C-alpha cells in the first residue's frame, strides 16, 4: 500500500496531494507540464526537502513531519529513472548497473538477479560500453536496469520516455510493459502523454495545478471530465479491456477481441488467444445507430444501452454500456435530437477496425462483472 499526503509550497505554487494506491501496481501521475508531477516525485524520493506531509510505502514510513521522521533519500531505496538518464559517464554500463546494487545493505543482489535484469532489458551487448556512446533508448534501458538492481521498494519513473523520439520510445515501452508484468515492484509513472499511461498504468492520478483532480482505474479516468480538460476533446476516448478470442478460423488478418457482450475486430501485431488487450475507442471515432445497420464497411458493431448524455462545448457526449464496459461517443447535438437519444435506449455502436489501437496487457484483471 502506498500512502501519500503532501503539502508543499514554493513561490505561489501549492502542491497539495493526498492519495493512496494498492501495491504492486503502476500508478500513473498524469497532467500538464508544470502541474507538480516532478515536484511530487522528488518529494517522494526525498530529493526536495519536505515541508509538511506523510509518505508511507508498504508499511515503512519515509516521511512524517508531525512525528519528525524524514528518511534520507539514500535510505529510502527508491529506484528513480530520470527524464535524462543520468548515467555516470566515468563508469561502464556494467559499473552503472552495479552502482546501486553494491550499496544495498543485506540486499541479495546475486549474479542470478543481475543476469535476470540484464536479460529482461536486453543489456548484454552493452555491458562493456561507456554511456557516452549509447543511443537515447539504450541509455534509458540502462538507467532502468540500474534502478531495478538497487532493489527498490518503489520505482519512480519521471517521464522516462519524453526525451526520446517516437521510434526510440517504441524501443523502451515494451520493456516497461515487461517490468510491470514480470516484477512485483510498485511503480509511479509520470507522464503527460496519455498513450503511455494507456499502455502502462493500472491506476491513474490526474494532477492539475498542484491538486489531485481525479483518481481511479484507467477505464473510469479515461471518461472523466478531469482528463478531458487536459487532453482536449479530440483525444477523449474510453479505455476498455478485452480478451483475445480464438481466431484461427477467421483468416481475415484481424484479431477478434471480446469486450463486454460484443466483439471488436482490430489489427494487432502479436496478440495471442486468451491474452488481455487494452483498447481505447476515441469518442470522435464512434458512430451511433438506433437500428441494426446493414451494408456498411464498418467491421465493428457493438450492441449497447445509452447510459447518460452530457453536453460538452458544442457537441454531446453519449456514454453507452456495452455489457460490463462503458464507451463514450461524441456526436452533434443535432444528431442527439434526431435519433431521440435518451438514457436506457438500446443502440448500436459502430467503429472502424483501422481506427482502434490495442495493447496487450498480461496482468490478470479483476473478474468482469
Amino acid at each position, binding site marked *: 500500500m502506498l500512502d501519500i499526503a503532501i503539502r508543499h509550497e514554493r513561490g505561489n505554487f501549492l502542491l497539495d496531494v493526498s492519495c493512496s494506491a494498492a501495491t504492486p501496481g503502476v500508478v500513473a501521475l498524469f497532467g500538464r507540464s508544470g502541474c507538480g508531477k516532478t515536484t511530487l516525485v522528488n518529494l517522494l524520493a526525498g530529493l526536495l526537502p519536505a515541508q509538511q506531509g506523510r509518505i508511507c510505502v508498504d508499511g515503512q514510513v519515509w516521511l512524517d513531519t508531525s512525528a519528525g521522521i524524514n528518511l534520507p533519500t*539514500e535510505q529510502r531505496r527508491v529506484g528513480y529513472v530520470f527524464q535524462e538518464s543520468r548515467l555516470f559517464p566515468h563508469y561502464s554500463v556494467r559499473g552503472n548497473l552495479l552502482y546501486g546494487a553494491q550499496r544495498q545493505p543485506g540486499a541479495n543482489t546475486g549474479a542470478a538477479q543481475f543476469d535476470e535484469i540484464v536479460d529482461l532489458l536486453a543489456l548484454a551487448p552493452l555491458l562493456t560500453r561507456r554511456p557516452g556512446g549509447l543511443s537515447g533508448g539504450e541509455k534509458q534501458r540502462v538507467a532502468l536496469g540500474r534502478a531495478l538492481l538497487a532493489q527498490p521498494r518503489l520505482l519512480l519513473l519521471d517521464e522516462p520516455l519524453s526525451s526520446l523520439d517516437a521510434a526510440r520510445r517504441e524501443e523502451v515501452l515494451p520493456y516497461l510493459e515487461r517490468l510491470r508484468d514480470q516484477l512485483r515492484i510498485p511503480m509511479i509513472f509520470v507522464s503527460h502523454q496519455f498513450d503511455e499511461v494507456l499502455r502502462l498504468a493500472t491506476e491513474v492520478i490526474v494532477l492539475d495545478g498542484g491538486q489531485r483532480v481525479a483518481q481511479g482505474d484507467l477505464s473510469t479516468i479515461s471518461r472523466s471530465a478531469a482528463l478531458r480538460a487536459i487532453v482536449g476533446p479530440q483525444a477523449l476516448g474510453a479505455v476498455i479491456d478485452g480478451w483475445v478470442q480464438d481466431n484461427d478460423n477467421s483468416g481475415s488478418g484481424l484479431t477478434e477481441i471480446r469486450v463486454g457482450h460484443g466483439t471488436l475486430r482490430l489489427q494487432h501485431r502479436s496478440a495471442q488467444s486468451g491474452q488481455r488487450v487494452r483498447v481505447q475507442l476515441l469518442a470522435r471515432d464512434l458512430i451511433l445507430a438506433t437500428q441494426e445497420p446493414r451494408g456498411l464497411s464498418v467491421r465493428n458493431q457493438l450492441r449497447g444501452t445509452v447510459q447518460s448524455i452530457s453536453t460538452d462545448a458544442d457537441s454531446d457526449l453519449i456514454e453507452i454500456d456495452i455489457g460490463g464496459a462503458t464507451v463514450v461517443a461524441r456526436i452533434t447535438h443535432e444528431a442527439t435530437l434526431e435519433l431521440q437519444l435518451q438514457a436506457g435506449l438500446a443502440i448500436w455502436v459502430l467503429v472502424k477496425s483501422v481506427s482502434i489501437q490495442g495493447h496487450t496487457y498480461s496482468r490478470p484483471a479483476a473478474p468482469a462483472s
Partner: protein
Amino acid sequence: MTLPGEPELQALHLSLTVASRSVLLSLLPALGVAWLLTRRRFAGSTLLDAVVHLPLVLPPVVVGYLLLWLLGVRGPIGQWLEQWWGIRLVFTTNGAALATAVMSFPLMVRAMRLSLEGVDTGLEQAARTLGAGPLDRFFTITLPLMLPGVLAGAVTAFAAGLGEFGAVITFVSNIPGETRTLPLALYSALQSPDGDALAARLALLSFGLGLAGLLSAELLARGLRRWLGR
C-alpha cells in the same frame, strides 16, 4: 641532495621542491574552499571568496610582508609554532613553499570551482537514490568528474610556484641552498658583475621547465577526459 658548485642545479632542485610542496600543501584546502564556494550558500561566502582571491591583486611583497608579520619569529603564530612545535618558517624551504602556496591558492581554487560547476548535480542525485551517502557520492561521482579541473589547478599552481619571487624573497629571504629558487638565483646572478652567463642558463632552464610542464599537463588532461568518457 645539494650539488655545491652547480648553482643552476641547486636552484632547479629547490624550485621543484618548493613548488611541489606548495601544491601538496594547498591541494586539500583548495578543494574544500572550492566545494564550499560552489555548493554551499552561507553568510560570509562573498568575503571568503574575496580573501581567497586577494593574493591575485595584492603586490606579492605585501603577501610576503603579511606572512612575515604573522609567522615571523616574533609574530603571533610564528612564536606559537616555534615554542610549541619547534617549527620555524622564516628563512626555510618550507616557508618558501608556504608563501608559494598562498600566492597560487586562488589559481587552484578557480580551476577547481570551474570544474565543480561543470559536474551535473543530477548525477549526484542519481547516486543518492541508489543509496550512496555524502562521502561516497563525493569520492565516486563528484571528485572523479572534477579531476581534470583538479589536475589543471595543480599544474597551474605548480608552474606558477616555480617562478614565485616577491612573496618568497620577502618572507624567507634569498639563502643559497635553502630558499634561493630559480627566479631568486636569476635575480642574484643579474646583481653580480660576472653573472651574465649563469643568468642566461637559468633563464633557459626556466623556459624549458615551463614548456615541459604545460605539455605534460595537456597530455594528462586528454587521457583523463578519455577515461571519463567525454
